[in-house]
């Protein structure tokens, strides 16, 4: 399978600050590649380098086999980019913004019109086509931004936190659209800091303080990095948290909704029984202890704790 994106030892420095630190990964054509990590972990910087907006400090990045900085102009037509912040025109209507994009990407007028009505239907933009972009709320602006980025049917689509600040319904709609695009063979490179959204991706990479700390399918991420996870339900929940924090076989305890998730060392067949015994000896009341599949959030919390913040650039190398 051909590679849509190849990144080798990519580093980006802003003065003393290392935003992206020796990152390497690749994305195959047709993948929905999820780029995860908290705010400030270097996701947006990486995506902006891949779109030719920023020059890499060192290392290489290629899109469709072309160097993203040297051959930037040859890549433009083949990629779609939806920036993290709304970067369309506030004083243009939704339709005018779409028309502007059609002009920039040379989508023939008739085809542009057909795609506009198609996108208007999928993203439910029909009723707001004649409204000025500045009068739209975040969710609608994001829908418009998504529509413009896929108007020219790019084989590779970069979405930088498309779902930030949008309501759950819009979020679901976005992932449906992303799924449809992938179905049509479009490679989607999407960043998010909402870990649950990672489940929609075919492959994931996790960024933390500028470094790539894990990579794999959602399944691999869950099973390889976090082996055993139990969920404890109790009222009140705090005594459970305190009791398990002290236990030697527990790697990590974290609140998860109204329950506690505890990660245990190595794969223990009797994990549930061990935790129950632990709680009983500590004299803590609980309702239920059950082994669970770790969520992406569990995986991230676990991985992030293992990778402490580097004190100075490259000091731990």
């Amino acid at each position, binding site marked *: 399978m051909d590679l849509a994106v190849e990144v080798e030892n990519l580093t980006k420095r802003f003065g003393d600050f290392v935003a992206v630190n020796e990152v390497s990964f690749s994305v195959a054509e047709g993948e929905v590649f999820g780029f995860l990590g908290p705010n400030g972990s270097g996701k947006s910087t990486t995506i902006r380098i891949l*779109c*030719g*907006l*920023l020059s890499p400090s060192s290392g290489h990045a290629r899109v469709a086999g072309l160097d993203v900085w040297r051959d*930037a*102009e040859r890549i*433009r*037509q083949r*990629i779609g*980019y939806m*920036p993290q*912040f*709304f*970067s*369309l*025109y*506030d*004083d*243009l209507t939704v339709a*005018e913004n779409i*028309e*502007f*994009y*059609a*002009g*920039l*990407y*040379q989508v023939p007028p008739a085809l542009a019109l057909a795609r506009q009505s198609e996108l208007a239907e999928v993203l439910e933009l029909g009723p707001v086509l004649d409204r000025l972009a500045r009068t739209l709320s975040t969710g609608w602006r994001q829908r418009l931004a998504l529509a413009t980025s896929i108007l020219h049917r790019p084989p590779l689509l970069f979405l930088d936190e498309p779902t930030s600040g949008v309501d759950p319904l819009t979020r679901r709609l976005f992932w449906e659209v992303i799924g449809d695009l992938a179905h049509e063979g479009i490679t989607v490179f999407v960043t998010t800091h909402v870990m649950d959204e990672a489940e929609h991706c075919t492959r994931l990479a996790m960024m933390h303080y500028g470094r790539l700390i894990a990579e794999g399918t959602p399944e691999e991420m869950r099973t390889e990095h976090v082996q055993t996870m139990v969920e404890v339900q109790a009222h009140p929940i705090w005594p459970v948290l305190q009791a398990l924090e002290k236990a030697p076989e527990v790697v990590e305890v974290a609140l998860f909704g109204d329950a506690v998730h505890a990660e245990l060392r190595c794969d223990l067949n009797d994990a549930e029984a061990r935790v129950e015994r632990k709680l009983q000896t500590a004299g803590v009341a609980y309702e239920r202890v059950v082994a669970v599949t770790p969520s992406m959030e569990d995986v991230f919390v676990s991985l992030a704790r293992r990778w402490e913040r580097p004190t100075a650039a490259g000091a731990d190398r």
Partner: protein
Amino acid sequence: MNYRRLLAVARTESIHNLRDVRSLFVIVVLPVVLLLLYGYGINYDLRNVPFAVQDLERTELSRSLIQHLVSSGYFQLRQVIHDQRQIAESLDRAAVVFVLVIPPDMGRRLGAGRPAKVQVLVDGADTTRASVAVGYIEGALLAFSGKLGAEYLARQGLSAAGGLDVRPVVLYNADLKSVRFIVPGLMAILLTLLSGLLTSTCIVREREWGSFETLVTSPALPPEILIGKILPYVVIAFADTLLSIGAGALIFGVVPVGSRLLLLFTSFLYLLASLAIGIFFSTIMRTQRLAILTTTLVTLVPTIQLSGFAFPIRSQPLVLQVISNFIPATHYLIIIRSLYLKGADLLVLWPRVLALLVFTVVLVTVAARRFRKQL
């Protein structure tokens, strides 16, 4: 170069201007206000200059001198002074521009064939007005004196002969109306101000809005973006040029005597040069305010102060005279004033047109080279 992309940029830029109140103000209101302000407000011509008289002689002769001044149409008698102290008071209040003091022995001295001294006290606070007024008064008094001399000679049975008979002939602007001088100058000011104000924001604005990211990641090439962005302003600035030519003709009756084609061509060159300066600062400045401020400072101030619009270049210090050659407006002003007033043609004006052409090419090139598709 792809025209579809270029036109997409141009169309969007036009919509920004049509929906922005400030832009509309600059495009429509500014030229009209400037034209009326400069055309009507600034007038170096003097009419009905108010003056006062202290007539110490009170004879038929002294009254005919006063009458001579009043009937010329340039002077208006406001006050007859009886007390010496009133002179300073009247000038201090700025009630009059000058005070004429006729000595008690004027008739006697003239009768005896000796020169008589008439005193004129002028308010010099406004130097321009004072010097113009002094010229008018001298002329009027000289004419009166000549008339007296001729009458004297006639009474003696002699005909007026000999002496200098000075008859200045003013070319190009025969009745010396300053509006003919100001309207062409105003076109230069207008094009400078308008082009600078409009384009100085057009790139930096995109950076502030965040929409520059959209342009950078798009396949549109730098020249397509740049030309697409300038195109609406070329149209606007050219329309405003036609507007001021039309207004000059209709409101002030000032029409170019020379080639209109050359007028349009050089105006086009000049507006391109001005737009290029605005674009240049728009690409290097980080905020709209800074871009507007710098552009205005760099273009408008030298254009008004140094180009010869307000002050003659020859009366400036040598350093400024040299600098004025590097201001596009200097050359443009000379060209359009020649076209408006003298009807000069390319055979005479070519060095200036060439200088303007060089400025335009250099400025557009610098602006284009500075423009990058980078954040």
